[in-house]
């Protein structure tokens, strides 16, 4: 990978996401920002994709199980050329093709409809199983939130993935340590997620989810493991990449007004500068 390129791509994703949320005046900033680096690595350096033919049969699949981070995915897809960038400014508009949660029937490049938490995990294992049955080389990537681990369905999906030896599947768990109502450890403590996943039969790693190189290297390691699904637990910060929002406690869904609006404006200006350098 060209680290500089990917870091820049991450900044572009964060910038476009911020602009969408600024335009809308509210949105899921915290969980969108925490997955930006992972999206940058996947779409820039890892996945076999064809933005001009989003449904091409040989593509790799991406399932954003934590669907509320839709804006970050839309920014990524637009930057990759799946659809015109000006669509981004229609986020959550009446009749938009970019609803708050990803919808495969509305947005080019969205492989699975998600938003009701837990369900993307099952769709992802189903897609992976299908490719395994047909001996196809397509890979499946999914990002699950740490709060989403509250949902029993993800553990059903994990058991299935390990039992079926889905080595074409890489699960990312975005451990940003928070869910809507507060810290995950205060609501339903997930304890050591990596250890849990190892016990569930996964090849389990944990990396700094802000470090594109670490994410890239973990994926390369996952590729070497056969007959086991891999999980990469991403140690991230909710609101990652903009200090003000990292420090804001209630940053799951933010309404931008007063100070938070100013800070988002500042962040956009800084990111614009950094991206144009």
């Amino acid at each position, binding site marked *: 990978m060209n680290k500089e390129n990917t870091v820049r791509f991450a900044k572009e994703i964060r910038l476009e996401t911020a602009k969408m949320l600024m335009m809308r005046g509210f949105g899921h900033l915290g969980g969108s920002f925490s997955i930006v680096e992972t999206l940058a690595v996947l779409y820039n350096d890892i996945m076999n994709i064809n933005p001009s033919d989003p449904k091409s049969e040989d593509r790799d699949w991406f399932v954003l199980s934590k669907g509320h981070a839709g804006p970050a995915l839309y920014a990524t897809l637009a930057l990759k050329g799946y659809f015109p960038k000006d669509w981004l400014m229609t986020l959550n508009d009446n009749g938009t093709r970019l609803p708050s949660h990803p919808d495969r029937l509305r947005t080019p490049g969205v492989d*699975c409809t998600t938003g009701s938490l837990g*369900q993307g*995990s099952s769709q992802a294992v189903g897609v992976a199983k*299908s490719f395994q*049955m047909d001996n196809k080389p397509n890979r499946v990537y999914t990002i699950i939130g740490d709060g989403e681990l509250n949902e029993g369905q993800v553990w*059903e999906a994990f*058991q299935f993935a390990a039992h079926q030896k889905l080595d074409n599947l890489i699960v990312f768990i975005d451990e940003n340590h928070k869910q809507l109502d507060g810290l995950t450890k205060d609501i339903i403590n997930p304890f050591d997620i990596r250890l849990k996943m190892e016990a569930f039969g996964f090849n389990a790693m944990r990396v700094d989810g802000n470090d594109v190189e670490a994410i890239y290297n973990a994926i390369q390691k996952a590729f070497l493991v056969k007959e086991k699904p891999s999980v990469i637990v991403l140690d991230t910060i909710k609101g990652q990449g903009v200090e003000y929002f990292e420090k804001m406690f209630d940053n799951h869904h933010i309404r931008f007004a007063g100070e938070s609006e100013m800070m988002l404006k500042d962040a956009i200006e800084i990111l614009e500068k950094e991206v144009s350098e």
Partner: protein
Amino acid sequence: MKIIRAIEQKKPEFRAVYVETLMELMESNPNVVNLDADLVGASGAAKLFKKYESRCINMGISEANMIGAAAGMSLTGKIPFIHTFAPFATRRVMDQLYMSGVYSNSNIKIYGSDPGFWAIHNGGTHTTMEDLALTRALANITILAPSDATQFKWCIKKAADTYGVFYIRAGRKSFVDLYDSSSQFELGKGIILEQGKNVVIYAIGEMVAEAYKAREILLKEGIEVAIVDMFSIKPFDEKIVKEMSQGKSLVITAENHSKYGGLGSAVAEVLAENAMSTPLRRIAVQDRFSEVGTADYLQKVLKIDANAIVEVIQSSLKTD
């Protein structure tokens, strides 16, 4: 639509029909896969699992994941047939049926077995009287409640050939044979099995046979009863309901389901929306739960058998 009334009472088990039909489908279409949630022993699909090992998956006791994974498979071109008991195929997984299923426009085919009184000795916990009410409220779904083995087979094949989410509810044991094996059906088309000038019974599933029994009894009293098989719950044949209800003294619905949200409600909606004043009586499970028991016993206590139909018709016509 070509319908030939069968004379023989062959009574193949529905689960045998399911397996035999899937055997044919899997032979002819490599995209058909079969999923079960630790009920292979109950569905009798072991034969399928043996013959098509790589295309049959026991998902374990995890119905939510089964619906979601099947939806995922379908997006890559597979045609997953899913079996579990009707309560777990609907009540337990409503949100998966919604988001991963119909809202995503995935292509999954669900056989919910042993609805209503067919839960027999599994009792109230395993009984669903709500599956039609729940699934009818979903957009973009086809719901079928076949009344005999031939029709069940047709439903399975139609599901394989038609893109979209299908929910097929039926017991696992045998029903009375109603149709000759060459019969053809249509989605959204009810089947007029008998004409009769006084009363019309719209029935589904095993209740079609009960309607026949009731008809025989009532004929002796000079009451003529028409019978319509409404196996296609969604799409629903509103036209046939309008036509067949016209001029009757009484409309009856008969279903192995709650009186809320199922066939009775569907017929009531048609009558009301067309300002038809024919009185309606619903032979369905009243607002109560089921219990353990034999099928005969449960049909009796739940008041969803031929006797219940006869009593309601007799008393309604008397008071009218």
